[in-house]
């Protein structure tokens, strides 16, 4: 039993079959027309008059072809291309900037030797140390200047007291610094 089954045994090959319209005949012209579209071939046209399954299939394929043609008729908005390319270019530039930053990050190797880590720590701390030294110098300078100012004020006060308030050098609390 290697030959093709008779048409009666396989309802899909029966040209004039009615009944279930979900299973169409295996017709070459129907398959070809389904793929290529265009006007219905005359033989197929005659066939679908008496085959509801193929008629339904032709109707469905027709709907698909019509919808595809409708989709193909959707014209591109005039400035869509410009906007899409503009966004793409901005994205590329941003990606380039981001990848440069990523390259920098990759240069920071985690498996440095001990002496290099110390060197790295020293380099990192040197700014802080310099800033602290600077602050210390400023503070010492300010304190020293304040103390000098205070001493000078005291000296001037004592001179004033010696010359104008207690020129003889007598009396309580008299301070004779100039002497």
């Amino acid at each position, binding site marked *: 039993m290697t030959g093709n089954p008779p048409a009666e045994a396989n309802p899909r090959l029966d040209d004039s079959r009615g009944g279930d319209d979900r299973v169409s005949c295996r017709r070459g012209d129907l*398959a070809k027309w*389904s*793929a290529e579209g265009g006007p219905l071939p005359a033989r197929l046209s005659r066939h679908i008059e008496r085959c509801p399954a193929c008629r*339904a*299939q032709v109707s*469905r*394929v027709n*709907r*698909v*072809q*019509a*919808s*595809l043609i*409708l*989709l*193909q008729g*959707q014209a*591109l*908005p*005039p400035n*869509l*291309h*410009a*906007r*899409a*390319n503009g*966004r*793409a*270019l901005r*994205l*590329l*530039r941003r*990606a*380039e900037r981001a990848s440069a930053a990523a390259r920098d990050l990759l240069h920071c190797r985690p498996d440095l030797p001990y002496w290099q880590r110390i060197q790295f720590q020293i380099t990192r701390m040197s700014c802080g140390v310099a800033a602290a030294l600077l602050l210390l110098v400023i503070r010492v300078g300010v304190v020293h200047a304040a103390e000098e100012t205070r001493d000078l004020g005291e000296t001037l006060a004592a001179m004033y007291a010696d010359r104008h308030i207690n020129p003889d050098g007598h009396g309580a609390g008299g301070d004779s610094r100039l002497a």
Partner: protein
Amino acid sequence: MARVAALPLELRSLLASLTSAEVAESQQWILRLLRGQGAAVLTALWRMLGSEADVLDAYQTAVCRLTARGQQGVGANPAGYFYRIAVNAAIETVRTRQRQKAHWPRLVESRASLPSPPGVMAVCDEREALERMRLAISELPRHLREVVILRDLGQMQYAEVARCLGITAGTARLYRRQAVIRLAELIGEEVTG
């Protein structure tokens, strides 16, 4: 290239300006892709999505993935890769839309119950037919879907489709024939179901 020649003059000049754009040397291959395939990809995306915002998002997603992959990562067929990722982004958007639509059935029902003038109904029918077809395309198996999108929406020749997908032109024809039959089944199911 015939599609590029069919574009208006200002778009062609803009397309040409992509070559001289200031981007890094390592990204020049992406510019070449955008210049060569950008118009066709955008056309296919527009027909698949029908919304400017969605098209821009899908296009940018595709460019983003190209950038992330790099020239070595996309393989020997960068144009095919570009088409595929753009189409995948579009399919994802169509499916997301469908999922969102499932959450507002009541709104659709109330709109359907309202009386509309005949002109408005025709526009709605056309829009619904387009949406139905887009959804049906997104439900196709991947190999059939790619052929339909490139051939019918991107309006490429079978040879170009075959080159993009890495198959023969005969296989592309066969896939397209199977796709139409499957689409007919899907559309038929939706109409009767």
